[in-house]
C-alpha cells in the first residue's frame, strides 16, 4: 500500500478546527471519495478535532491520503497529551457526555468511518486514528 505525503496540522484554537476540516476536504476530494463519503469523513474530523481541542487541551491532526492498493482514501490521526479518557467503553456509547451537549461525539464519529482505532491513557493523552475509503 502506498501512502502519499502526509501533513500534520496543529490544533491549538478553534480556527484550527476549521483548517483541519478544509484540509481533510481537499484530501478526500483528491482521493476520489464521493460527496457523501467526503461529508462523513470531514464531519468525523470536525468532531475529533474539536475533542482534541476541548478535552485533549490541544494537539495535532495528521492527514494522510492513501492511494493504490486496495482502497483509496484518507486516514487521519488525532493526538493529544491531555488528561486521557478514563472509561473508554462508556465514552464510546451513545449519549455519554462529560460536558453539556451531545456527547463526546466518539461513537458518532466511529459510525462515520470505515476504520476507527483509539488509544487513551489517563494522565498521558489520547490518540485516535480514523479512515474512510472508496
Amino acid at each position: 500500500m502506498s501512502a502519499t505525503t502526509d501533513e500534520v496540522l496543529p490544533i491549538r484554537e478553534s480556527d484550527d478546527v476549521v483548517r483541519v476540516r478544509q484540509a481533510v476536504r481537499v484530501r478526500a476530494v483528491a482521493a476520489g471519495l464521493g460527496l457523501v463519503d467526503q461529508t462523513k469523513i470531514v464531519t468525523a474530523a470536525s468532531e475529533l478535532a474539536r475533542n482534541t481541542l476541548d478535552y485533549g487541551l490541544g494537539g495535532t491532526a495528521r492527514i494522510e491520503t492513501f492511494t493504490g492498493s486496495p482502497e483509496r482514501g484518507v486516514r487521519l490521526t488525532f493526538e493529544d497529551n491531555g488528561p486521557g479518557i478514563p472509561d473508554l467503553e462508556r465514552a464510546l456509547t451513545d449519549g455519554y457526555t462529560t460536558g453539556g451537549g451531545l456527547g463526546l461525539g466518539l461513537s458518532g464519529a466511529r459510525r462515520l468511518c470505515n476504520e476507527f482505532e483509539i488509544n487513551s491513557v489517563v494522565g498521558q493523552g489520547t490518540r485516535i486514528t480514523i479512515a474512510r475509503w472508496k
Partner: protein
Amino acid sequence: MDRIPILKLGRALLVSIQVDIHDRLAKALEEDLSERIVATGARGVMIDISGLEIVDSFMGRMLDNIAAVSRLLDADTVVVGMRPAVAITLVELGLSLTGVKTALNVERGMALIGSGQYEEIDGDDALEGGDERNDG
C-alpha cells in the same frame, strides 16, 4: 470581528450561515438573535444552512441552543436548506435535532412559523356576528 447578519423577513428573522462557523461567531449569533427576537417581536427564526457542507455536533448544539432560547422568547426556529449529504451524515452521526423544525427552503419555512398558534385573523371574520366597525 464579523458577526453574522440577521435580516427581518415578515414576522421572522432570517439568518444565513455560509461559512465555517467557529465558537466566537456561534456565541455572538446566539446573543444577537435573542436580542433581536425581543426587539422586533419576531415570531420565528429561520436559519438557512444551504451553504453548509457539514453539520457536526457543535453546530447541532448551536442550533438546539438557538431553538431553546427562541422558544423561551415565544418564537419558532426553522432550519432550512439542509443538503442531502449533510442529512445522511447527521442520521449516521445520530444527531436528531429534535428541538428544531425543518423545511426545504425559506418559502416553506415561513409557512411553519406561527403555525399551530394564533392564526392570522382577517378583518372580515374577526368578530362572530358582530360589526367590528362599531364607533365609540
